[in-house]
């Protein structure tokens, strides 16, 4: 099974995340789906630039072995931290909404807020 690699898994996960974002109406699940989607892009970035048979890019003395390109892994660290910050802040705002409307259903939230605006 050579066809199953990180990139295909990443694409499948991206699709699941996108589907979750569109069809699930619960805000918390939407945020989970968003996390899945962002995680899949990270997996894609790492595995696309992976090197089968390569050694982790930690230099142990002079050698001629094939090292994996360390740059994508460094980039991914920044992306993970950013996604964590976004998830945390989004959950704080969801908490504020739940305190007020006692629901995490996006359709109901839209209707409630629209009604308040027009009144």
């Amino acid at each position, binding site marked *: 099974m050579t066809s199953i690699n990180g990139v295909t898994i990443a694409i499948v996960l991206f699709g699941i995340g*996108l589907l979750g974002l569109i069809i699930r109406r619960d805000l918390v699940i939407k945020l989970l789906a968003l996390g899945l989607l962002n995680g899949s892009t990270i997996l894609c970035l790492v595995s696309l*630039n992976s090197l089968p048979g390569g050694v982790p890019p930690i230099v142990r003395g002079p050698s001629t072995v094939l090292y994996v390109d360390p740059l994508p892994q460094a980039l991914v660290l920044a*992306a993970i931290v950013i996604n964590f910050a976004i998830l945390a802040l989004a959950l704080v705002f969801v908490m504020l909404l739940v305190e007020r409307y006692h629901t995490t259903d996006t359709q109901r939230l839209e209707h409630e807020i629209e009604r308040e605006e027009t009144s």
Partner: protein
Amino acid sequence: MIVALIPLCHFLLAGLSLAWERGTRGVMLLSLLLDATLVGVLFGQLAGGQAVSVVFGGWGRELGIELAADRFSLVFAPLVLLLGGAVIAYQWRKRLRPYFYVLLHLLFGSVFALLFARDLFNIYVIMELLTLASFLLVGYEKRADQIWASLKYLILASLGMGVYLLGVAIVYYHTGTLNLDLLSAVISSSGDVPQWAVLASSLLVTGVAVKSGIFMFSLWLPAAHATASPAISALLSGLVIKMGVVVLFRLALVFPLSLPLEVLGAVTGLLGIIYAIYTYDLKKMLAFHTLSQIGYLMLGIGIGSEIEIAGSLEYAVGHGLFKGLLFLAAGAAVQATGREDIPGLIARRSRIPLATRVGLLVGTMGIMGIPPLAGFCGKTLLSNGADSVAIQMILFLLSIGTVISFAKLIPLFRLERGPSSPWSKMGAYAILGLPMVLFLPLTRLFLPVELWRESFGTIPFLESLLAVIAGLLIHRFLRKYPLRLPKRIFYLEEAILIILVGFFLVFVLVWLG
């Protein structure tokens, strides 16, 4: 080194503002002055023919992070300073938590960093920082509608940035570099546009488009910009949206994106203007209008000739000034009357201070493109440089549409004495209004003299007057037939679906172009 110093200063001062609560406003003003001097030095270096760029970490341009300043990025610096000054003046009397200034520092720091960024991944990080800062600023007052609008913004922007990161992954896999200049060398040397570049560039464009106020992608924008407090709306609409356009411009220099950008510009311009015409809520109309004005900029950078780029730049700066002024004045008007809908505002117009009405009038004149003001310059350059009749028609339709949508405000401008407004607010209007009035002479600094003389002759003058008259006439006719436009597309789920459709549209267009 100065290039790095400007954003860094803001980020350091953001931390300082948290620690030292009482002096935050002063620190903000001082940092804007510091920016002004540093940007002046950069202008001097560029004018002297020096290349202003720095690569960090000693890794070289392939791997290191490069920051560089060029004319394009420095044109936006005065806009940042003016909008920053106006926002501080506008809220001089208001008691704000120091946290507000922390966010403002983060916003300005990331705006400058984005202007100087030359690296796809660096752009990604800074755009995320910009998202976070503006997300917290929209929800600053913690009203329920603000929180919901900013949450929608965060979810859509995060989705967009995920898509962008996929594009980055593909680019790095195929080229081994993320530096924009090196990428453009790689792509132009390969002759035909490679297959991967089509997919990668449509992913990148989709991701950035979510943040740059293009109709199909940025459906979060009307709610977020209409519900945020006036000073923040002014910053978001005047400045933050333009940053996405700057990134699209940088991408257009690397990948062949003429066709998709022109089509997206036409779509966002026309749909935005239709929504603006049929919206009777003042701040919401201004927000829809931002969507349509992005159309001008996209058409300009899509065509990509020198005069068009100059026109887009001028229009971006001009739009920042008058949209900022309009949002500030609209906020004051809404506060004075307690009504947000335009008929309600007109009914209570005697309660609106005279200075606010003058501010609204100057902003409206600017956005309509009445000759000596800011809107006129950009519009004229854009329509002079347009190479096909179709694009000229679209530009003319956009001008007429702008006049139609702002004709609703004309009954507000009766010259009668209202209550007086505080000096701080008048100062804010003056900071944004005066450069707008003096815009035409100022553009000479950026354009060669012959081009300037050629561009601003009698014909564009008459053309813009024709657009105004036509718009006013059509407004008299259209207001008898109100129309309810679909509102469901601004819901979260629908907005995500439309982004998906937009991605396929961009992909096909890149492939065809």
